[in-house]
């Protein structure tokens, strides 16, 4: 019961903050709403007893990535909105398309998981009485999900190289 209340409160908060991120006129404020959003997600993880994920969520997203966002927002002149340079309708179409795709995906997941018996999948038969889930997570990442993990890291590497190429100055 308590968990359900926590979940729904957090869900409302997360959604509300998400809307706030998109609608706030000041960019810095909107970035801050994003931080709050991430913190709420972290609390959600805690409720799900995934402390490690929660902490990593705070560390990586709130403590790292969004700080970089703020850095960029403060450094870069954002007085002129990007729409001034491009066709706003094209962006709107792109956005609609993307969000539609995400929505579809979510719906698919929901439908798919309804069709199956839920909890049996947990492969984490508590190994040798480990407290917490850090070690479990590690096992899973390096055994069952090794290929997605490696693919993700290669993807990040590509992104990093791309960023360096973009940022490099012609000289």
């Amino acid at each position, binding site marked *: 019961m308590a968990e359900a209340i926590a979940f729904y409160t957090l869900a409302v908060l997360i959604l509300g903050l998400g809307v706030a991120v998109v609608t706030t006129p000041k960019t810095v404020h909107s970035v801050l709403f994003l931080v709050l959003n991430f913190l709420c997600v972290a609390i959600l993880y805690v409720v799900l007893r995934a402390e490690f994920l929660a902490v990593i969520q705070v560390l990586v997203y709130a403590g790292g990535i969004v700080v970089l966002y703020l850095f960029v927002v403060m*450094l*870069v*002149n954002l007085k*002129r909105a*990007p729409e001034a*340079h491009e066709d706003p309708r094209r962006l709107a179409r792109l956005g609609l398309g993307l969000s539609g795709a995400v929505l579809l995906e979510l719906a698919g997941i929901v439908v798919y998981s309804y069709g199956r018996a839920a909890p049996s999948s947990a492969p984490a038969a508590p190994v040798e009485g480990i407290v917490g889930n850090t070690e479990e997570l590690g096992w899973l990442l390096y055994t069952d999900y090794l290929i997605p993990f490696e693919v993700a890291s290669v993807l990040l590497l590509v992104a990093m190289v791309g960023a360096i190429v*973009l*940022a490099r100055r012609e000289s």
Partner: protein
Amino acid sequence: MTGQAAAAPIFDTDELVINMGPQHPSTHGVLRVVLRLDGERVVDADVVIGYIHRGIEKLCENRDWTQIILLTDRMDYVAAATNNLGYCETVEKLMEIEVPRRARYIRTILAELQRIASHCLWLGTHAMDIGAMTVFLYAFRERELILDLFEEYCGARLTYNSMRIGGLPLDIPTGWDVKVREFCKVMDEKVPEYEELLTNNRIWLERTRDIGVISAEDAIGLGLCGPPLRGSGVYRDVRKDEPYAAYDELEFDVPLGTRGDTYDRYLIRLEEFRQSIRLIRQALDGLPEGPVMGKVPRLIKPKAGETYHAIESPKGELGYFIVSDGRATNPYRMRVRPPSFCNLQGLRPLVVGHLVADVVALIGTIDIVLGEVDR
């Protein structure tokens, strides 16, 4: 989308214009530097001065020849005795007064003490600008000893009024020379102490090596003088080139830099500590007997004529250009060539291309006193 936009002007970073000063902890007074920054890199700088312009040159043209000595104190107020010396020497040159040898020796001692005091202040503030705050207090501790010596000699600690046209107002008090020797001994120990804190300190090296490099040709062209000029390897010291006071009778070396960077200028000033101590010791050893005041007419009134005379102040070539019309008891025109003013002109070429943090290091390395820049 991001890739497209990166080229578009949305991601242009605006140049940030910041005002460093007139009130800023590191501008050594009321100096204002308008910096145009790209991120933290200085794209351009405009040096704005004049905030404490008191019209000293104009005032001098309305004061007696003797009264002016007081006014010169107020220019480079951390090296007042040097200013006195420059002015008195110039008037003596104009009037062709011979200064007794003893007075010349004592003047040399005073000027060199003053150089140490001024360099102490420079070292302290320069190190403080770069964040080493302990050096500041160490250097001020030794400067205090010099101020005590001056207080004993002439009764004042900052604005000395310690010289007269034709000589000195007073002979040295008894026992003063012993105290000066003791001070030299103290300084012998303290200079290595400063060096220990800074010279081989990695952070200090990184902050000063290759920062504000200026070539010998540029330094000469910009009219830099004193340690900034010698830092670029130009052998130029008024004490050697156009000797005054007792410098032609004393031995000392002129330290020269090789790279012309902030670190070289730092090393030069530290070496000047040692050379000044050496000069003071020699002058004390060879201190002749005799009067300290030359034969000077009761009414000081140089014949009509003009002259330029320079001495080596702690900051560089301190020149006086004085015109007498031969009729009034005040100079017709008195011009001071302030070393800080001419060195400060070199700030802009030095800072462009460096970071904000280097700007404070470079203001420090030039060693300016705004009282002298603005007069």
